[in-house]
């Protein structure tokens, strides 16, 4: 019973292994990069535009609106990072309809790498917005006694991000594998659809949580719990 695409070895030379995670990750990267490059070659601002451009516009404006709802002003600064997070995880989950494909996010390496990116991005954007002193000062708010707890909470939410995504993706593929050996007819299709749904939801959750953490860092730690709507709205 395979626990992750790490164990699918495509090619091996000495201790260099080309396993499923690497191959599928690079495949997704190629699809995203080349696809976007091809679609944005001839952008038009007239009323008549290609459907692919429409699709990209829907996606980009949707993500921008979500980022703004979370409370980040100037969503253009953050949409590169947050949008890529969402698109990568969403596409990784969506491609499970292709036979023979295992989502690379079903491996703890990938999700840990994504969570570490978020861990690095939060101080990056925080220092960019508030300056080094302002950002470091936010760790001792509301009192100095909270300093170790703030640090621990940073590390634990990174871990939670990684394990949450890994657990959801891995459990989806594992349940499918188990069901295929027990009732290989209609039920695995229902579970596959459920896996697609949870994959989309987890992609959304991952990027929204990253956005909330960045918003908390760029705004300073005024006690703001999980994504709150704009109260004036």
């Amino acid at each position: 019973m395979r626990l992750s695409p790490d164990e699918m070895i495509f090619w091996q030379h000495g201790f260099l292994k080309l396993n499923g995670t690497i191959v599928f990750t690079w495949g997704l990267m190629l699809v995203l990069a080349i696809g976007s490059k091809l679609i944005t070659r001839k952008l038009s601002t007239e009323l008549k535009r290609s459907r692919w451009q429409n699709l990209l516009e829907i996606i980009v404006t949707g993500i921008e609106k979500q980022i703004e709802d979370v409370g980040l002003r100037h969503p253009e600064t953050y949409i590169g990072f947050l949008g890529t997070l969402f698109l990568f995880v969403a596409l990784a989950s969506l491609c499970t309809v292709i036979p023979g494909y295992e989502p690379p996010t079903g491996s703890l390496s990938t999700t840990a790498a994504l969570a570490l990116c978020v861990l690095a991005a939060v101080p990056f954007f925080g220092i960019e917005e508030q300056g080094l002193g302002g950002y470091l000062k936010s760790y001792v708010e509301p009192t100095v006694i909270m300093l170790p707890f703030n640090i621990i909470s940073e590390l634990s939410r990174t871990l939670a991000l990684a394990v949450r995504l890994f657990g959801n993706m891995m459990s989806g593929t594992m349940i499918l594998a188990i069901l295929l050996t027990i009732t290989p007819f209609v039920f695995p299709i229902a579970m596959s659809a459920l896996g697609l749904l949870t994959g989309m939801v987890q992609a959304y959750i991952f990027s929204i949580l990253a956005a909330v953490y960045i918003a908390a860092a760029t705004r300073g730690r005024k006690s703001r719990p999980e994504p709150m709507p704009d109260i004036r709205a």
Partner: protein
Amino acid sequence: MDSMTLIAIASIVTAGLTIALGSIGPALGEGRAVATALSSLAQQPDAATTITRTLFVGLAMIESIAIYCFVVSMILIFANPFWNHVIAGAVGK
């Protein structure tokens, strides 16, 4: 009972108990979250998108606790280091 049997018994029983007990809390929590969300949707239908979005994010956070328990259970069954160590010892003998 030698150590191999003991490790096997402990792993199996713990794996089952982990996922059994670990699903109770998140299930109750998610039920309460959805109930509150439904009642606030009934009170303010025009805030529906915000409420739904916050509900889903909250549900994912609660779900992650159950996912942790599931991951531990899977590790105990499929990637158990103690079992691997004991099996390697038995094969080497």
